[in-house]
């Protein structure tokens, strides 16, 4: 059985629910049969991937939906073998090069070289180029991005790149300038609500407006999350109740608990405790920006106005250094330690003032 997210994914530009004008422009772009390299960016759950797939479908027809999984093997100069899973149709290939970790440079170069060196079999019927879809470009190392910029110029005759990223700030300017950047903003709450209502109508369900609004608010502009939440609510309890409990992902609760642990006690021992919780989050694949975001959000609710500004500044400083550095735990922990120090200082000051 397929999830609602998949079942009701729009498959043409005329069916998309929001950013309709942008959709029309994309349609016009590919109607001429050719387009420059594209860079889609925007928060997760905004519909980047949906738009990319519609774009490919416009280009090549429904053949792009016949997907298959393939393992590709690469070999580093030091003879280490890397295996990467790709998803491909006859016309395009999708890869998440950041899976290769520090070897992503080789993966990017080899993949594009391989794909670009072979021409399409039947160039008259099809387009004369293939499409390579690279996801999570912002997670690529700077090395790999540098390699990408050279390769994308070299092979523009035979292949087009579609890059997909959450944040453009991690993409080097050289790549940004070589691509047509398309920002896909996250849908507004009203748009999410209307999508939810639509889906429920098609499923033959009635959803109270209040519940739909609450789900939209909880999902923070992430349409995927909203639809999944809605489906989870339906499985849990139907008919819907407008005050029904809305499921939240457990990692989010875990981060909030961690914030409470930080607030409870500011000692070196407790810092170690927090560290092990952070490790837990990191090795379960929770992105650091989400950890920072929810941690800060929860910590701020318990902070006095006087220290809020300082805390936010510290958080942004450490997130910045996290992106420049490589070992994330250093920066997360530094933020926690710094927060503890600020908080403790503030508490001591208030006690003294009393």
């Amino acid at each position, binding site marked *: 059985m397929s*999830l609602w*997210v998949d079942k009701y994914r729009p498959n043409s530009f005329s069916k998309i629910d929001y950013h309709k004008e942008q959709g029309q422009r994309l349609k016009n772009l590919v109607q001429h049969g050719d387009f420059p390299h594209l860079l889609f960016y925007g928060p997760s759950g905004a519909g980047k991937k*949906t738009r990319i797939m519609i774009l490919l479908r416009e280009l090549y027809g429904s053949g792009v939906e016949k997907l298959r999984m393939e393992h590709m093997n690469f070999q580093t100069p030091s003879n280490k073998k890397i295996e990467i899973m790709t*998803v491909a149709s006859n016309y395009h290939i999708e890869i998440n090069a950041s899976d290769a970790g520090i070897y992503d440079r080789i993966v990017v170069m080899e993949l594009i070289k391989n794909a670009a060196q072979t021409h399409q079999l039947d160039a008259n019927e099809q387009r004369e180029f293939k499409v390579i879809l690279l996801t999570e470009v912002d997670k690529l190392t700077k090395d790999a991005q540098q390699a990408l910029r050279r390769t994308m110029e070299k092979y523009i005759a035979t292949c087009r790149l579609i890059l997909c990223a959450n944040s453009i700030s991690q993409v080097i300017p050289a790549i940004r300038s070589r691509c047509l950047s398309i920002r896909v903003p996250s849908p507004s709450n009203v748009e999410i609500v209307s999508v939810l209502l639509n889906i429920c109508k098609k499923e033959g369900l009635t959803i109270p407006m209040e519940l739909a609004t609450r789900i939209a608010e909880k999902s923070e502009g992430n349409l995927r*999350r909203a639809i999944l939440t809605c489906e989870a609510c339906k499985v*849990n309890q139907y008919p819907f109740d407008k005050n029904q409990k809305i499921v939240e992902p457990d990692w989010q609760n875990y981060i909030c608990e961690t914030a409470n642990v930080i607030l409870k006690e500011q000692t070196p021992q407790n810092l170690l405790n927090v560290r092990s919780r952070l490790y837990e989050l990191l090795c379960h694949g929770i992105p650091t920006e989400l950890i920072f975001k929810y941690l800060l959000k929860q910590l701020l609710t318990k902070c006095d106005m006087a220290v809020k500004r300082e805390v936010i500044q510290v958080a942004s400083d*450490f997130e910045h250094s996290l992106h420049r*550095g490589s070992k994330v735990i250093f920066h997360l922990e530094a933020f926690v330690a710094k927060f503890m*120090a600020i908080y403790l200082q503030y508490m001591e000051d208030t006690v003294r003032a009393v």
Partner: protein
Amino acid sequence: MFLVTNRKRWVTPSFDSFVNDDLPPAKKTTGKKVSLHTAQSAAPGISVRENSSSTWLDKYQPKTIDELVIHPKKVKEIEDWFCKHQTNQRKKYLILVGPCGCGKTVSLRAVARKFDLDVTEWVTPLDRDFNADLHGDEQTYQSAAEVFEQFLTRASRYPSLLSVQKSKIILVKDFPNIFLQKPEILHGILRKYSSMNTYPVAFVCNDDNLVRSLLPDHVRNECNMHTIKFNPVHCQAVLKALERVLNLEQKSNPNANIPENIDLEAVYQSSAGDLRSAILKLYFNVRAVDGVVGVESKVSQGRTVRTKQKGKRGAKSKNGDTKEATDKDSNIDLFHLLGRVLYSNRQCTKDSGQEYRFVHNPNELVDTCSCQPSSFISFLQENYASRFSCIKSISKAAEKLSFADVLLSNINKETDTTALSVAIRGLMVANDKPVKSFKPFVKAPSSEDVLKTSFADEIRVAFPNFLHSPRDIVLYTLPLLKNSSFQFNDSQTEIVNKLSRSFWK
């Protein structure tokens, strides 16, 4: 001193210990190696040892077991193995592991001499003439592994012409590079060799990890290998050995000016249990002082008494110049270094207590760090928090560590040392009241993202809708749906279980 191959002959002669300098230069051994070996294992007839130009290492190498300063139990262990080998031919591999200069080879040779065995050493051919190998008509190229195998079989089949001993032992100190990359080849050769009725083989190596990767436990069990571990030579033994060398030098060369004031204790201190380096340093000291200080010849007994007194006085006694000149880069191991940074000691320079200096200079700590800056900083990060007594100092230290990590990630590696320096200084300065109690140091756990492993592919297979990346599934699809009565299929349930194991209590 191995396989002296003359390409013009169709039979490859393999007369060990038969290396003479008049053979043509296209040898598989370097000239240096050759002379070294003749010196070390030569048959009785060749007397290179009396040559005054040879170093004290060769000149005064212990020949018999009694002369060894190694712990008697170790020597006994080797002897036991030799006895066992003679009764049971199956036991034919011996592994000697220990740090450099702790007397592994010397003891082996001494014991072999006691058992009347000849020692044949394998030397990886270095200067092979590849052009000749490729273009020569009669000989084709041989891989290092083949050459090694041939060496083993030949060395055991044909006894040396020059030697009077009936039996011998093969010594392997030098592993061809191919074995480091593909240990299986070595295992194959050893298995084959162990079934043959031949001489024993001793592997001597100073790197425990290397031995473990070359000869893993299952191979050792399979081939009946016996491992003997050596420790660095302890102080008294080193002093004894140095005494012995000095006495012998005195005897053999009564005219030599052997200065009186050599501080053997200092020599030992600077060599840290490495007997070879200690003797070399002694030699250097004797030569360095020679001529500078006018010395009267000393009776050997007098010297013994003197050093004993020094020994009692302890390591504090320093002979400024010699120590400076011979100080080996004292190699502090990782844990001492961590301790010096995390439990930094301070000395007040003024009575007010405001100004202080560190007992261990941070500069020197940075210099002596022998491991990779990045791994050392990881160690510091993992261990620093429990050594601080106050969260405010931790926050200062954590900030520095965070900055050090930024420096480490710089694409040109020049800033690595700076990063190390920032981390070490940051921690030492911030830690104004270190926790006194000792806690064991731990290694940073591997916090590898599950999505960076093959687990990501499992997710892709279990959720075959390609529009979701594994991260989306982990972040939203699974957490939202798993507590509801949503119907997952088997492989999906497995993923859910794997993810929630020991997590989200």
